[in-house]
């Protein structure tokens, strides 16, 4: 997003999902939230289904029949509750992008939401996911719906059948978006056709571009720091040092470790331009690319110093960093926020790609991990990411599975806890 500061343009956008059940709406909604949150844009998803479940926990397909007036009433109430909460969030929590996750399949429902948004000066943007690929739909149902809270305790086959009937009820009244004066994106059959209408701002175009790059093919991402470096041994930060003996050992063991995890799948390796990551990836038999954007956080004036030296020379800075590690910018250097800004193209590229392994540095790894695991800003700079460990991320329907694979090579710890003075030398 590149420093998109919403102080200058006080825009509030409501993304309204549209589509039949099992079209991946919730998945899309949650990915948008994760992406924007990572870029420090306040985003939140309001799932109408969750509100409905508070009242009606295990509905059958009949509940969703249009002619079932009681069902209609309860569902409308749920939508109202969700929207109320969303507007409250816009006002009280200074939200920027709120996502209303529901089917919103009729024009009248959409109009109702539209009016509410306009009254509150919130820009509405519709995202419709349209799919007629039966296989995709069935797979979605099996993956997600049968384990949904609606069907807890039920036989998956029966649940799938009931869900299919639920969808049929929606199909009877479905009106795809065709209103020309609305801002919307229509994703047809997972992007084989995309219709983009009346995009109003750069933020919206960025969201659309992000959506266009998503795919649902299964894949994994492997993350690793460089092997232990000479600077790591002396406790210095930054620099462009070589690997230590143990680091070199890690580089030698890495291909085997990776092969065990990756198997025969094709893989590409991304490294930074600093020597230590390239030396670490040296023996990996895969295509390699170097990215300047993967270089470590620039420590500016503190580059090449140890934490102890920093604490001695710049005690105020040292304390200020602990106060807000995400925002703190080293004099003449960068902050975690700056790193996120420059990592954005990497993330966009990662969304497009399939199997990738990234060999990078502590701060950069924290930022990438935070994106996939939705780690908030006050925690991500403090995450422990030890040396000589391979982290495997496997994005799944509603979350990412993490596996940590430790190489059996000892290394120093570069981890410093919040508030911990660097003056006490730890072994």
């Amino acid at each position, binding site marked *: *997003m*590149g*420093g998109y*500061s919403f102080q*200058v343009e006080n825009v509030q956008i409501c993304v309204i999902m549209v589509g039949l059940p099992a079209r991946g709406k919730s998945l899309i909604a949650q990915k948008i939230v994760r992406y924007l949150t990572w870029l420090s844009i306040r985003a939140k998803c309001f799932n109408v289904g969750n509100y409905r479940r508070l009242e009606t926990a295990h509905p059958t397909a009949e509940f969703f029949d249009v002619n079932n007036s009681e069902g209609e009433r309860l569902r409308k109430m749920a939508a109202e509750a969700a929207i109320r909460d969303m507007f409250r969030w816009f006002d009280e929590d200074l939200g920027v992008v709120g996502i209303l996750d529901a089917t919103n399949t009729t024009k009248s429902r959409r109009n109702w939401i539209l009016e509410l948004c306009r009254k509150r000066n919130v820009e509405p943007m519709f995202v419709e996911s349209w799919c007629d690929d039966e296989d995709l739909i069935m797979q979605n149902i099996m993956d997600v719906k049968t384990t949904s809270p609606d069907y807890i305790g039920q036989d998956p086959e029966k649940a799938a059948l009931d869900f299919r009937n639920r969808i049929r009820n929606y199909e009877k009244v479905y009106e795809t978006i065709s209103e*020309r004066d609305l801002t919307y994106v229509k994703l047809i059959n997972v*992007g*084989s*056709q*995309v*219709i*983009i*209408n*009346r*995009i109003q701002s*750069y933020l919206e*175009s960025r969201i*659309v*571009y992000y959506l*266009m*790059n998503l795919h649902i093919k299964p894949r994994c991402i492997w993350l690793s720091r460089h092997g232990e470096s000479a600077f790591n041994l002396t406790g210095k930060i930054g620099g*462009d040092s070589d690997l230590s003996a143990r680091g070199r050992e890690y580089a030698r063991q890495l291909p085997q470790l990776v092969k065990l995890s990756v198997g025969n799948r*094709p893989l*590409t*390796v*991304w490294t930074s*331009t600093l020597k230590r990551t*390239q*030396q670490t*990836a*040296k023996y*990996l*038999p*895969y*295509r*390699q*690319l*170097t*990215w*300047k*954007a993967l270089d470590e956080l*620039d420590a*500016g*004036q503190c580059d090449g110093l140890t934490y102890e030296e920093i604490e001695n020379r710049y005690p105020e800075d040292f304390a200020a960093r602990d106060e807000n590690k995400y925002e703190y910018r080293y*004099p*003449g*250097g960068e902050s975690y926020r*700056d790193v996120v*800004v*420059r990592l*954005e*193209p*990497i993330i966009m*590229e990662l969304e*497009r*790609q*399939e199997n990738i392994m990234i060999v990078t540095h502590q701060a950069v790894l924290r930022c990438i991990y935070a994106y996939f695991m939705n780690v908030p800003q006050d925690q991500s700079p403090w995450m422990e990411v030890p040396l000589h460990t391979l982290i495997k991320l496997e994005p799944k329907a509603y979350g990412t599975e993490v596996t940590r694979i430790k190489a059996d090579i000892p290394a120093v710890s570069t981890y410093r806890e919040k508030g911990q003075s660097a003056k006490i030398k730890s072994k």
Partner: protein
Amino acid sequence: MLSLSSDSSPSRSPSPSPSTSSDDRYRAPSPMANVPSSFASSVSPPGLSTFHADLATSPITGGFESQMHMSHPSFTSQLRTQSVGSKYLRRQSSSVDEDAVHDTLSPTHVSPAQLYSTESGRLFHAGKICIVLVGLPARGKTHLAVSLTRYLRWLGVKTHAFHLGDYRRGHIAPGTEVPDDYFLVNASPSTVILRQRVMAACKADVYRFFEEDRGQVAIYDAVNPTSAGRRVLVKELNQRGIQTLFIESICDRPEIIEANVRSVKISSPDYIGWDEKEAIRHYLKRISDKIPHYETLDEPEFSYIKLYNAGERILLNNSRVGYLPNRIVFYLMNLHIKAGCVYFARAGKSTEPRPRYKSDPHLSDEGRTYARILTDTLLEHRRSEHSARGADGDNSPERELIVWTSTRRRTVETAAEFEKRGFSCRQRPQLSQMHPGSCDGLSQQELEKQFPGEVELHKKDPYRHRFPRAESYHDLAVRLEPVILEMERIPNDILIVAHVSVLRVLYGYLMACSTFDIPELDFESNEIVEIIPSAYNNKVKRIKIYGVEESETL
């Protein structure tokens, strides 16, 4: 009768007809024909887009070759003396103050934001692509072709736009005129033959671009009105291994069409010397003559993008050509026909005579004075431009000015005066200067003493070479991409206050400068550089700031 005198005034006169230009074809000097082995080995990997990645290296040897083949010593001088004659019709350009977007690229051209080279010269593993524009006249096709060329070239995709109109003009010998029925649908047989010859000449150049110049994207700018015609084109291109992506520009708002005609008339070589109303009428008649036979894109098996009313609505169908359509659509979402001006200004002097990156110094008193004078000068310039436009009959309101600076103190403080006067100022970390790395604060002599080898390498390739721990212009170009896109989207006028390294890269994008020119671009400390966008070319104006001395690079 259309009179096409090719000896009309503007510096951009059309080149002579294709048959003669084939004699002064640019041929790459023979040393360059042998691409060094470091490139021969970087074969395009399957299914991978490596946008923003650096040069691919051989994984086993791990060597990192940071020098492009452009560093061959004789190449630089040869390119600088490249003759104007080219194999395609192109408009002449000789200085960096002329928009170079129409220039032919040499076979070994490397773009400012290009991220890697492949043996085939083609990026994004998308092979050869022909973007075929579809649309009635005055729908902004040529503007689209020019903007896309600028953007794609910037990314390193070897692109060239082929405007059928240029070939038509080039095919008529100077002094003679285009036949009356040239634009009519039911023309006489001799006119039909002429039209076919024109098309054939254009296609021949397109194929030459792909086959001999290792071009990747050709943009074929013509009306392409019938489905049958398009199918034939696709078949012919596919036979040569060229994929197609159609982009149709559709307009159903008459005010947009008229505005297009008005601006097209000013820039197009066709109507030089005509009365404005006559020209608009003639042009609109050309359009209506074609309407009965115009078929909008509807072929479901084609990959296409439909652009409605200059970006109000975009439809993307069947993007089999992979990465590029998405990237193009993103660009199109942000592209405006009426883009605002961009002003470039340097930051004022700081308290350090040679400001170090790490210390991030404040403005000195002299710097603050400069900031005030800068603000006054720019606002006065805008006022006088606005009244000059009014005198010309253009009563469009003045576009609002916004200011972008980096997060470095010098730039923020330079813009402080604007902020005081109520202009919206925004700090963007990507606008920070090129990171000097280990060279921070060093004078030229100190640099030569400490890093003599690096200085040598830098001289050979000032665009891509990185000093230790520093950034190169290339890194900067990659970093500035979001800024560039946002610049395209914003309808306001923008003032960018930044370090000269950043200004060079942004200027390089807007004026389609080569990687040789970008590191040498001049930005005086007592000047504001104004870039005025227009459909065919971006124009440069330099506004002098009085009361400020010229000085060394800050």
